[in-house]
């Protein structure tokens, strides 16, 4: 019961999705299923919240090293959640000033907006921008290439980088028109149009087959590792 029913649920739900693709009157079910998933994912956030509480409360009560930071997380979490769920400082919609809950939850100037604008955006955007440094260090590592494959990767990257910039046009501008394919922009064009296209296609075809087999294993109940093995 604990194992069999979930497997039947997965199989039926999956097969319905497959059949719905070929049967026009059912095609909308695929969208509905996506929506249902999104609802479940949103509800599941309660579990996520419980996990956050449990983890950090334990760290604080155990006075583990760095428990102060757990306190910061918990306080930030609690304040944001209450400000957002109760729409603190959010005015109602213009046409319905008598209905206090009708305002947009993230109205400009409201506390949740402030939190988003001045806490979330700067930290996440800066995290994202760190990539510029990581790209540099990864390129440097690849530069000390140990094998032919790494040389190929880096060489291509180098050509494409130059070929797409003004430097590429400048460096190989003297090459006569009839040999345009040998200029850096010309080589970039060939790399993108031939090898990159071919590589991407082969990867995609492989991925499709991998996904087909992964999905089939789930639908047939062969891979039930997410529910535990049969051993």
């Amino acid at each position, binding site marked *: 019961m604990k194992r069999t029913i979930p497997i039947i649920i997965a199989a039926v739900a999956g097969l319905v999705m497959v059949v719905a693709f*070929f049967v026009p009157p059912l095609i909308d079910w695929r969208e509905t299923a996506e929506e249902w998933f999104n609802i479940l994912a949103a509800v599941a956030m309660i579990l996520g919240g419980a996990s956050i509480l449990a983890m950090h409360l334990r760290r604080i009560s155990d006075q583990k090293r760095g428990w102060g930071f757990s306190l910061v997380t918990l306080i930030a979490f609690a304040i944001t959640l209450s400000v957002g769920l109760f729409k603190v400082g959010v005015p109602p919609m213009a046409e319905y000033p008598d209905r206090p809950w009708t305002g947009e939850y993230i109205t400009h100037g409201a506390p949740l907006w402030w939190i988003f604008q001045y806490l979330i955006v700067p930290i*996440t955007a800066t995290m994202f921008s760190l*990539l510029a440094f990581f790209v540099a260090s990864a390129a440097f590592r690849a530069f000390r290439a140990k094998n032919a494959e*790494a040389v190929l990767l880096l060489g291509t990257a180098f050509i494409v980088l130059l070929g797409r910039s003004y430097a590429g046009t400048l460096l190989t501008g003297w090459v006569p028109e009839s040999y345009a394919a040998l200029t850096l922009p010309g080589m970039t064009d060939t790399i993108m149009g031939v090898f990159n296209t071919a590589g991407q296609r082969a990867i995609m075809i492989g*991925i499709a087959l991998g996904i087909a087999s992964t999905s089939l294993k789930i639908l047939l109940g062969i891979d039930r590792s997410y529910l535990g093995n049969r051993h």
Partner: protein
Amino acid sequence: MVKRWKSVTAAGGRGRLTGGRGEPAMGSWGTPGLVAWVQGFPVVGQLVLLVVLGVMAQPLWGAPASPRGLRARDVRNDAGRALTLDWQLSPDDDVRLDPPRVAGYRLYRAEVTPEERPRFERIRDEQDLPPQVDEVVDEGLTPHQPYLYRLVAVDAEGRESAAAELDQPVRPEVWYFDRNKRWFLAITLLISAGILFFIRQARRGVELKIRKIAGLEAVDEAVGRATEMGRSMLFVPGIQDMNNIQTVAGITVLARIGRLTAEYDARIEVPTSRSLVMTTARETLESSYLAAGRPDAYHEDMSYYITDEQFGYVAYLTGYMVREKPAACFFLGAFFAESLILAETGNSIGAIQIAGTAEPAQLPFFVAACDYTLIGEEFFAASAYLSGEPEQLGTLKGQDVGKLLGGLLIAVGCLLFTYAHGADSPAAQRAVNYLRFQVLGTEDIPEEILEPGE
């Protein structure tokens, strides 16, 4: 800001150029004095005057000529909710005219029921179709319900032409099988059959050989090293939710790694960026520990939720990596821009790193910074490979059948295409187009594509 005032008063907020079903305008001729003057003529004279005036005034205030030949047909391969209508343009719908005589077309629809006379109602949300349009798909209909249509041309003043009508009601039919997808169904069944065939072979005990996949051979080594060093392992199932099959594939690999971890008595942590992934990871790990015979060693905190925010999650992971210095990092799932930050940080702390994803744009970064990278299909093969179960390995053989099928299609297609080009053969060109657009496509294809060179 305030651009159009008139439209507000005219139509109560919904701007509309035309003013409803206007009767042909009569101008300001109808003054009593004029009528009396005309009435002074003999009857025949009155009639002649009327005809002459009418003919002269026609271009000035008459309604445009009507469109002709209105036809309706069922939209194929749909759920019976649409009809296609086409017609010949009104002779007055001429782009060379200035000002133009036709401002658009207005479509009326009536449901045909045995009980009452059909009542025509204007459709398309009170918006007229633009001029020079001679086909429209009317959507949102009731399956099997007969409909009648009436089409008029309207001019800028909203005067309607005489109507073009259907002589027979049409019904949108429900198609219970999308015929455009028949070849795709065949391909899907063939690939599935290939996979199923090898699963059966494996169950019968036929030995299946699979080549070594270096990244997966290294999993054992990674877990072993973490145990030796007494350090933890980090498993990152990507940043997407369970509706991404890559996350599902990552979790199935986690089941194998979890089992190894339990057997070696190593430590594993699975921070997730989605609550559902956390829940699934917990179920999976619990089962793995149970399968390894060590249910007591499992505890829920092995998998925990961080945040749905992509870079908030990354901030936590990088901090965790430099502080806890896990001996092995597994990045298996759907990754985006964060791939490089994670892999580089892992690299800097000297962890063994095994990555796998089907995001082509992120593979370069994993390849550059990880020890082993499972590229696309290899990632999906990981769960089967690590399980070592014969029937799971059978699915890998089945995937190879799919690749053979793909290769065959490409080879046949290319040869046909080459022949069509080289020998200038329309028949070969037709065959190529059929293969490309009918066999390998699922959309409705216009006839022209299948009948080239005409």
